[in-house]
């Protein structure tokens, strides 16, 4: 590039305006992404009709324990995999929290529900909405997170994109769960992961192209 590396250093040292930290950029992307998803939610689908009764149901509330923990852990891991040298080795284990919580709830559900209720609860009434609305609601958050990660430098671009996809689908699933009337853990563990996988795969594919540096 330059005859002397010192010439380059002179140049770089002159461009030393204070910069935004990656953490702040991701925080901003997160906020904007949530706002976009919220607008889409309130304009497009809104709360379920019986929301005032639903909030007294443990099954309904537990959906948010799972989706919020997915969003929080995935954002935390994004912060690590978005940097040079970052890998799942540092924080990846945190991603097991949300699936573990959901698995426990599923076991409890199987214990308390009579067997003839298992299939009807699993199939539910909203599978098709679940599979379309979660990916739709996650588009805004995913776009924002990927835009912020472009300012990062992930050692593995695909991985960073995938983890951003997990975070985005955690946000989307949180909104969707407030609309969906299927509250059984059997429904959640069957359909939510499929929707989340779609978003995560999209994140992986876009990330491996867009997040190179």
């Amino acid at each position: 590039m330059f005859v002397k590396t010192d010439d380059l250093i002179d140049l770089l040292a002159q461009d030393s305006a204070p910069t935004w930290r990656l953490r702040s950029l991701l925080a901003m992307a997160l906020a904007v992404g949530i706002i976009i998803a919220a607008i889409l939610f309130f304009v497009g689908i809104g709360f379920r009709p019986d929301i005032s009764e639903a909030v007294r149901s443990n099954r309904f509330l537990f959906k948010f324990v799972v989706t919020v923990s997915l969003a929080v852990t995935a954002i935390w891991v994004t912060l690590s995999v978005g940097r040079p040298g970052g890998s799942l080795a540092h924080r990846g284990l945190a991603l097991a929290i949300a699936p573990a919580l959901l698995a426990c709830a599923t076991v409890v559900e199987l214990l308390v529900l009579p067997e003839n209720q298992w299939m009807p609860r699993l199939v539910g009434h909203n599978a098709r909405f679940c599979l379309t609305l979660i990916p739709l609601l996650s588009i805004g958050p995913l776009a924002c997170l990927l835009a912020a990660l472009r300012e990062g430098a992930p050692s593995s671009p695909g991985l960073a994109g995938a983890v951003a996809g997990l975070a985005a689908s955690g946000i989307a699933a949180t909104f969707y769960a407030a609309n969906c009337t299927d509250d059984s853990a059997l429904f959640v563990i069957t359909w939510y992961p499929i929707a989340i996988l779609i978003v995560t795969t999209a994140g992986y594919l876009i990330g491996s192209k867009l997040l190179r540096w």
Partner: protein
Amino acid sequence: MTTSSQENDWAVWMRAAMTGDAGAYRQLLVSVAPHVRAVARSRCRRLGAPESEAEDVVQEVLLTIHLKRRTWDQSRPIGPWVAAITRNKLIDVLRRRGRRVSVPIEEVMDSLQAEDQTSELSAHEIDTLLGHLKAQQREIVKSISLNGNSIRETADRLQMTEGAIRVALHRALKTLGALYRSNVRED
């Protein structure tokens, strides 16, 4: 591996640099360059690549450190961060030159030790990359780097404001980083 006192210096300088301290930033780059050079040279020697390739790596690593300095987590040591960038760019540059490479990170960490002679790149290399910049950006880059002018002197000479020079310089550096990347993708 670098000594911890040296890494401490780097961390202190980088923290200052992130708040806009150009002097500290310069010290950091001057101090990091020989370490990156040592790694790049030993790797190129082993692959039988010419010395100019090593200097190319050094410059690309410094440019990347610059463009991606926001990604250093200030609560973590800075040495591994520099090593990760060095490794990544080493692979890019050597791959671009059509070499098959794998660079274990441990090796980069181990051989981040000083070796202090610079080598020069051919004039042809400079022109190919800088040639892609807009005329005004190229003028600013040459004024500051090759002629050693300050931002103010450059502004006076080109009859622009210092702010405009800073913005143009920043864009030029981002463009150079992108040019490197597109070179990688072509093959």
